[in-house]
């Protein structure tokens, strides 16, 4: 079995993950997936699988456009295999081009969105899981170092971490449904924190 390299995983983290919420909402909006018995998740998992099969990602100049195109071709393939759907339900490629070739939102906005998802996910984790996850994801300690520091076994660290990643995956999964993050740019920082926490406190 082909094992993806660390560089490839890092490339995904840097160049693809930030576009996942946009891709997901695009898929959910246009693609009438339910009529062919698929979800956005199916397409996204398959998209990542196809990226993994690439011999190299060096030639990809515009990862955002590339990932949209890949997802779209998977979608087309699924639709063709599923003859129930008439050809009219397929969105035109031109439209896809419009979406995928829009300049990516600026890096700051993307980072804010990524951080928002991350911090929401972190806040939803049980305490021990959260500590382990933050030490690995935010501070970059190795699992062994975390085990040593917290005085727990490496198995326990691994279990907490698995739970933490699953939470983060879940939050990305629901990220496509949210309204565009444009308004967040205005409210980020202290004010946003204050508001969000207040709302939560009074619920």
């Amino acid at each position: 079995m082909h094992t993806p390299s660390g560089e490839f995983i890092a490339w995904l983290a840097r160049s693809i993950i930030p576009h996942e919420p946009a891709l997901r909402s695009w898929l959910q909006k246009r693609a009438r997936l339910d009529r062919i018995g698929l979800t956005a998740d199916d397409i996204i998992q398959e998209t990542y699988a196809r990226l993994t099969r690439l011999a190299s990602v060096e030639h990809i100049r515009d990862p955002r456009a590339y990932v949209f195109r890949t997802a779209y071709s998977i979608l087309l393939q699924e639709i063709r295999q599923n003859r129930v759907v008439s050809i009219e339900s397929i969105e035109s490629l031109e439209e896809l081009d419009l979406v995928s070739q829009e300049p990516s939102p600026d890096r700051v906005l993307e980072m804010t969105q990524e951080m928002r998802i991350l911090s929401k996910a972190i806040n939803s984790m049980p305490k021990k899981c959260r500590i382990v996850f933050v030490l690995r994801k935010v501070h970059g300690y190795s699992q062994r170092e975390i085990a040593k520091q917290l005085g727990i076994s490496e198995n326990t660290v691994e279990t907490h971490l698995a739970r933490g990643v699953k939470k983060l995956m879940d939050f990305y999964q629901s990220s496509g449904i949210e309204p565009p993050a444009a308004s967040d740019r205005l409210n980020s920082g202290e004010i946003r924190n204050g508001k969000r926490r207040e709302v939560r406190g009074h619920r």
Partner: protein
Amino acid sequence: MENDGKYGDIDEEAARWAARIDRGPLNQTEERALDRWLSGNSRHQGALVRAQALLVPCESVDRYISPDVVSTRSPRAKSPWLTGLAGLAAAFVFAFMFLQSPSADDAAFQTARGEVRRVPLEDGSVMTLNTASKADVDFRNGQRSIHLISGEGFFEVAHDAARPFVVSADDYTVKAIGTAFVVRKPTEHSLLVVVQEGIVEIGRKNGDPLRLEAGAMAEVNLRDLAPRITTLDGEQLTQELAWREGKIALTGETLEAAAAAFNRYNNIAIEVTPEVAQREVVGWYSANDPVGFAKVVAETMDVDIEITAHGIILKPLACSEPCKDDRF
């Protein structure tokens, strides 16, 4: 998430494998099990690399801090650079003084709050002064003598058997021949020595000298006789020396203690309300970024953050019942 029932288990399995791979190399049994799972469905491979990508550590803690905070601060110099530049400046000052006057080997050094300064000494040793510290260097008459007046210094001592390197503070002397160690005055009447390498000898005006080996930390109360000696492991040693890189390393200290550590370095004071004071904090933070620290704490520990004109207040999340403290 309506897909949970159907595909939740793919993600769950993918998350488990991602955490396992992140831990270290798989054994043969595990590798076979992973291959089996991956070959079952091409989406499994996709879910796995996605989980792995989500586990990749953030490039730095800075990424975790909202950009607006970063931009309202004065340009954020990276600590090692800052330290390096300060050291370079100190070297210039020192060399200049040395050329100017024969008494240049008698000099006083001082750091402002938040400043960490690396001072190369003429014998090849290096003194790194931590925040708000003051030391006199006296290399005249064939001696190597440093008087730590306040604060903390890290000393990397060049070997010279003929000239012992002595750091004095109050009634104590800390003597080294070729080693690296920290001397800190936590309060007016106490002394803390951490030995990173080699051996040092702590001498008192009246009393036997005390020998400390690498990894040892001694706390001496100047009024009290018995020193408290602990042995630090590599991790703790790194933590004790983190300030040299402009970092504060926390491994389960209380929020109160962590705030005190940041307040040593910054004019923006962090205040912690009693309700959250005993929460434990972990992580590796920039010493000169109390706002960043407070934000990470707020995001990860269910603590609320309030920024006032005087500083930062960390307090419990908005109370479900009316708050007793009417400051908030």
